[in-house]
């Protein structure tokens, strides 16, 4: 493997790992803030205990999101210095804004929330968790604005003298239509993730008949959130697919293993492709599905890989402009599949718990616990799809990935850090899961409800 391959693996591993924690953080921050608000409004101690129970799991997860996020910011310069030089004028701005507007807010107010239980008036303390949650969401917005610019560059010009991209319109970057479509998709996905987590953990507790009132309340709230967010994921995803068809036709074609331009294209369900010869051996399709998905019409034209390749060679010069088709195809399909299953699970859960009922059979409990993994798989596959589908470009139409890597680094260095990060991340993953399991088993603290005003050590502190 050369420096390029190793750097790509490193970026892939560190990014996918980081994004295991981010959606849960985004979604849980709002759910916990919601539970605390419910306690504030109703005075029902069950909501306070829910806030602390879910809050503790949130913090365990949050810590990992923070520390892996530091790597994300620095590795653009470390491994992709040519990219950083080329786009820094444009790409750096949203990153810096994220730090100044969002990350400070999130970190500072989370510190206040954790340690401020007995030091702040109740109303102010409630505000701290909301500010932290808002910071988390704004943070996602700026990061997605930066990423969307790589997918669909806007608001810039290429300076022929310096050979780099220069910002000409910050509003165009911040209101990039790609960002406007991606942000709700990611945020809804985050709510599905947090929802499925709360549903699964609650179901596990309910199956053991522990704290049934508290966990039924948690589960119901999460079921509603998950179902609504699933609908949001589907609609925003549909919008994204339509944009993608126009902005990155090769990505859409690869997602569908569609080799030739087609009108009334079918949505592929299962295909076995022959990448070398640019065709499929087997392709099971839902008729008109793809045209409907990408153009909202039954006879819309969708471009195919071979035709786009020919067109791109004319525009950008000779080269292979196809991403890894098999990976794009399956990650896209499985993302949708796992996401849809999470939505169905929420629907089933709401039906089973309607009008005060408890799901009787163990199958729902088991499904709900397994269901925790569904959105994580969908999120991961979604990122793999959106990043792999953009290849061979780092910035679509402007800079190829091969040209973005740090020219000065050698294989030994990049291999060292790749192995180092992977090992540390693996160890921390084990520790994190064990901690989560420990506190899930332990359940909500009893004394929290009784001694809520006692100023001993704060329950969520170190």
């Amino acid at each position: 493997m050369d420096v390029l391959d190793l750097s790509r693996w490193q970026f892939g591993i560190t990014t996918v790992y980081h994004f295991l924690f981010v959606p849960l953080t985004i979604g849980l921050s709002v759910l916990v803030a919601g539970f605390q608000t419910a306690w504030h409004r109703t005075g029902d101690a069950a909501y306070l205990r829910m806030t602390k129970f879910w809050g503790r799991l949130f913090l365990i997860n949050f810590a990992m999101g923070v520390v892996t996020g530091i790597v994300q910011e620095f590795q653009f310069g470390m491994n992709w210095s040519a990219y950083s030089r080329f786009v820094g004028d444009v790409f750096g701005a949203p990153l810096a804004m994220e730090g100044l507007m969002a990350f400070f807010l999130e970190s500072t107010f989370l510190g206040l929330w954790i340690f401020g239980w007995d030091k702040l008036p109740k109303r102010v303390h409630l505000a701290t968790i909301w500010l932290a949650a808002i910071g988390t969401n704004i943070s996602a917005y700026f990061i997605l604005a930066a990423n969307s610019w790589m997918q669909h560059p806007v608001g810039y010009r290429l300076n022929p003298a310096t050979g780099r991209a220069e910002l000409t319109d910050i509003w165009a970057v911040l209101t990039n239509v790609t960002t406007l479509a991606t942000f709700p998709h990611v945020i809804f996905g985050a709510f599905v993730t947090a929802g499925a987590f709360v549903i699964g953990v609650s179901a596990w507790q309910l199956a053991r008949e522990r704290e049934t009132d508290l966990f039924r309340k948690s589960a119901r709230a999460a079921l509603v959130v998950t179902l609504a967010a699933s609908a949001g994921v589907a609609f925003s995803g549909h919008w994204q697919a339509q944009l993608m068809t126009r902005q990155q036709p090769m990505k859409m074609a690869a997602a569908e293993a569609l080799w030739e331009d087609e009108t009334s294209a079918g949505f592929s369900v299962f295909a076995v492709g022959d990448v070398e010869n640019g065709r499929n051996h087997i392709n099971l399709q839902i008729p008109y599905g793809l045209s409907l998905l990408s153009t909202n019409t039954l006879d819309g034209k969708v471009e195919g890989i071979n035709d786009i390749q020919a067109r791109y060679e004319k525009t950008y010069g000779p080269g292979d402009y196809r991403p890894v088709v098999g990976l794009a195809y399956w990650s896209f399909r499985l993302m949708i599949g796992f996401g849809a299953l999470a939505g169905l699970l929420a629907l089933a859960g709401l039906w089973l718990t309607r009008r005060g009922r408890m799901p009787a059979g163990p199958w729902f409990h088991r499904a709900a616990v397994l269901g925790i993994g569904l959105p994580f798989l969908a999120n991961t596959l979604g990122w793999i799809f959106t990043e792999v589908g953009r290849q061979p470009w780092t910035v679509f139409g402007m800079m190829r990935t091969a040209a973005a890597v740090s020219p000065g680094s050698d294989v030994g260095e990049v291999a060292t850090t790749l192995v180092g990060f992977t090992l540390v991340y693996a160890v921390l993953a084990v520790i994190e899961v064990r901690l989560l399991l420990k506190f899930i088993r332990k359940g909500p603290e009893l004394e929290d409800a009784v001694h809520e005003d006692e100023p001993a050590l704060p329950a969520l502190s170190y």
Partner: protein
Amino acid sequence: MELTTVWFLLIAVLWTGYFVLEGFDFGVGILLPVLGRDEAERGTLVRSIGPVWDGNEVWLLVAGGATFAAFPEWYATLFSGFYLPLFLILLALIVRGVALEYRSKSDGTRGWDRAFFWGSLGPAFLWGVAFANIVRGVPLDAAHEYTGGLLTLLNPYALLGGLATLALFTLHGAVFTALKTTGELRDRARTAARWAGLAALVLGGAFLLITQLMTGTAGTWVSVAVAAAGIAGALVATLRGRDGWAFAANAAAIVAVTVTLFGGLWPDVMPALDPANSLTVHNAASTPYTLGVMTWVAAIFTPVVLAYQAWTYWVFRRRLTVTR
């Protein structure tokens, strides 16, 4: 003032904020095995920075992001050139952050305390090494790519810089602990402050003097003097039991050290051994448009951030007592 100057100053301010604030977090970590004789004491030490360390660390992330936005060439050269030291700093910050969050949630704290110690000691030393190299100048080619290796960075001057920041941050942690605790913990912290203060005076003094002779201007003589006075002031105030003054004096010393480094750097951001290849505030900067946009953002949000971070320190202003 030119916007490139504004951003040079702003980045200097961000690093100053980072070193002043996270400096004492590092110091607390480094002193943890020395000051914390039992679990209750160690828990108290960790709680003294608990509410604020995460917000303090964000100063680094914003400094990094601001460098990317305002001086992309600097960001690219620095981070790809100092690849392995940065990797070590990142690993240290990862295990340190996780240790802080997980220590009380785990069954045993021993391993986490060790991670917290090394995760604090590593960056406290390596930031000094990194900045000494930036000020001294490194081999860069005409495309501003770093051409040296790891050993280029481990020169005696840079290692002295590392020891200087290590001593300074340890002192900062000691005076912070003295300010935030009571009883035996406070007594031990004051003893530690005396030793760390002497080390900071000797190592920091030698480092700043060499730096001044190498890159200094008339103006940086003032900051060198302020740094020395700050450390000495912290020592004197500690001896007299004036913890607040000791902390303020050492914070001023850290500000002065950072001013000396950035003052010697200007108008370069990363001097090369061959001056023709140096990165300056001009050839490393973003376009005036980007700098203008970012200036507006910084002008609006920096005061807001300072206000709520200051409020956090006000909320958690009381001394902690060890509860067994």
